[in-house]
């Protein structure tokens, strides 16, 4: 019998951009046997795939892009796997559970960046790049400064994201599987190093695909189980939810109240998504622009479907978990009243899995949550390792004279290095308030990576000077405004009032970035600037037609 007396904690740290903190004591659980068996199945299956992939990963191109032979459907599924993190699954269903309609607002924000990626970025990115988005940004600009900045933006995004994932992973696994926090973090780190170093992009892609399939299947089952309970009538489900929680769950409830925050959040989500290095890197795994487009089409479908499921799951949790004595945190209720659930709002989906499918399905969903974290950290680490080996080592340090084998060796060493950094960061940040890190990662991606990428592809007058100074300024503004904002300045540093009043800096930092890149570029009259502008035509023709683009390698 599995001990159901969970004492979960708020996993607000990984709750996307939603605010929330990790507080209180975490109590380690008894071993959850069915979850562990299913998790072991996943791990042995994926390690088998890694072994298979390792035999097919011979060149640098194999390592970074799986040889460029992934199909649009596979890549779409893998992109969805990258994007549907444990944070999306638990965080958004938890937000719906807590606030109803407001959760949907977040989901929509996370989705609408995808059509823009398709219309504006996917195709030129595929046509111009090889392994990293810095390939595109530095296509006609000076390699050393542009690659250094792009790598800095990538590595910063990756490490921030990794911290959030590792801390979330440690707590989640500790709670679901009854492992020690440190053991859980080390386990995630070691498995991720194994997948990426030995299996490269091919193994990482298949881990993503399998995980996306498991997550979509599990979420579909939960949503159907909930709907079946209400004869597949949304109106009955909503009526039941309103009966327990009141009419407020059916309409916007002030999560995004002032216009500036609303627009700033929208900017961060849309442009940030288009500047995430691990997402951008996925476009190099397909053979051509046609498959790149299909990737986004399928990914948008899977992600949109998933968000509709999380909405149903959140409402399902309102009617089946809220006020259900089996899932109530009685100790907390005795102190603060109300109906606090065990582990906090982000455990709503996990409790619901037990309510609709018993211990066995709870084990399945727990294992899927663990698999989700593993897949996401693998994709992140590969993107970070590529920035180190391809951008910094091969292009900046070796000036483009590194051979493929030594470049691949460096990226494997970088993978191990990033894995170790992630483990130490995960342990160091265990007790820290990390609610700001994912927001900061999105802000940096939106303010540094995205403007440089976008302008380098479409704006003839962009110069190295403009990109480097303007991009750096955008990055610095994003970091400064997060530090001076309400989460870090008030909640963490304990000051009375925030110097910068908004939680999301993107509207300001993205504007700073675009305006300063523009201003510094148009005032750049150097010969170098003229040469770079002269090269725009050749770049544009290639970006539009794909003539000269990287193809798939033969296997």
């Amino acid at each position, binding site marked *: 019998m599995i001990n159901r007396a969970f004492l979960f904690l708020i996993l607000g740290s990984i709750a996307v951009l939603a605010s929330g903190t990790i507080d209180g004591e975490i109590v380690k659980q008894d071993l959850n046997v069915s979850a562990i068996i299913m998790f072991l199945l996943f791990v042995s299956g994926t390690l088998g795939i890694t072994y298979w992939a390792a035999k097919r990963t011979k060149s640098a191109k194999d390592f970074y892009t799986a040889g460029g032979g992934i199909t649009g459907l596979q890549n779409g599924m893998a992109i969805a796997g990258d994007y549907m993190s444990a944070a999306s699954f638990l965080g958004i269903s938890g937000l719906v559970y807590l606030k109803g*309609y407001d959760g*949907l*607002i977040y*989901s*929509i*924000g996370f*989705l*609408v960046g*995808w*059509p*823009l990626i*398709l*219309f*504006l970025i996917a*195709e030129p990115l595929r046509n111009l790049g090889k392994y990293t988005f810095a390939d595109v940004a530095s296509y006609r600009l000076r390699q050393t400064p542009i690659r250094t900045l792009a790598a800095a933006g990538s590595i910063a995004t990756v490490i921030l994201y990794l911290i959030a994932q590792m801390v979330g992973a440690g707590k989640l696994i500790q709670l679901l599987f009854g492992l020690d926090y440190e053991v859980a973090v080390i386990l995630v780190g070691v498995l991720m190093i194994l997948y990426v170093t030995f299996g490269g992009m091919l193994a990482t892609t298949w881990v993503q695909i399998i995980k996306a399939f498991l997550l979509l299947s599990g979420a579909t089952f939960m949503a159907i189980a909930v709907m079946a309970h209400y004869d597949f009538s*949304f*109106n009955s489900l*909503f*009526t039941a939810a*309103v009966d327990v929680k009141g*009419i407020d769950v*059916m*309409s*916007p*409830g*002030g999560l*995004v*109240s*002032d*216009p500036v*925050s*609303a*627009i700033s959040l*929208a900017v961060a989500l*849309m442009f940030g998504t288009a500047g995430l290095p691990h997402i951008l890197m996925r476009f190099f795994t397909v053979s051509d*622009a*046609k498959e790149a*487009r*299909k990737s*986004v*089409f399928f990914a*948008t*479908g899977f992600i*949109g479907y998933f*968000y*509709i499921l999380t909405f149903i799951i959140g409402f399902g949790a309102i009617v089946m978990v809220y006020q259900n004595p089996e899932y109530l945190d009685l100790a907390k209720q005795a102190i603060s009243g109300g109906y606090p659930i065990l582990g906090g709002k982000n455990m709503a989906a996990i409790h619901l899995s037990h309510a609709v499918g018993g211990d066995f399905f709870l084990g399945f969903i727990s294992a899927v949550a663990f698999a989700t974290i593993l897949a996401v950290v693998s994709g992140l680490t590969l993107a970070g390792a590529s920035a180190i080996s391809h951008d910094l080592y091969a292009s900046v340090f070796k000036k483009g004279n590194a051979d493929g084998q030594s470049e691949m060796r460096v990226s494997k060493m970088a993978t191990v290095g990033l894995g170790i950094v992630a483990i130490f960061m995960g342990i160091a940040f265990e007790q820290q308030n990390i609610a700001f890190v994912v927001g900061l990662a999105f802000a940096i991606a939106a303010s540094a990576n995205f403007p440089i990428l976008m302008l380098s592809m479409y704006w003839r007058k962009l110069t190295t000077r403009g990109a480097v100074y303007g991009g750096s300024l955008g990055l610095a503004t994003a970091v400064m405004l997060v530090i001076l904002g309400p989460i870090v300045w008030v909640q963490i540093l304990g000051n009375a009032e925030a110097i910068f009043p908004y939680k999301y800096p993107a509207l300001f930092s993205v504007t700073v970035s675009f305006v300063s890149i523009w201003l510094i570029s148009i005032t750049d009259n150097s010969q170098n600037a003229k040469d770079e502008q002269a090269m725009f*035509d*050749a770049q544009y*023709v*290639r970006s*539009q*037609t*794909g*003539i*000269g683009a990287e193809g798939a390698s033969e296997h």
Partner: protein
Amino acid sequence: MNQELVEKIKANPDYQKLVKTRTGYAVKMSVAMLVVYFAFILTIAFDPSALAVPLSDGGVTTIGIPIGMAIIVFAFVLTGLYTKRANTEFDDLTNKIKKSLGEN
């Protein structure tokens, strides 16, 4: 790609047509997505009660629910429309350009 080839492709009417049609289409689609999304977000910021109107008298389901779901479906439909057109019409033009280069 050498400068001569670049000039040749730029002078190709098919290339000019490709760039013009596709850029126009991509911009139109992007604007459609942005307008729908920002209309939604700004409604929430300025007049959230507009989304709280019940669909039927006495019912609990608000108009905000189908609107939210529709935006998700809308985003997906836009990607489908673009992908379909790009993978046929635009790719045909691209192939025509490539072919004209091979023949010369």
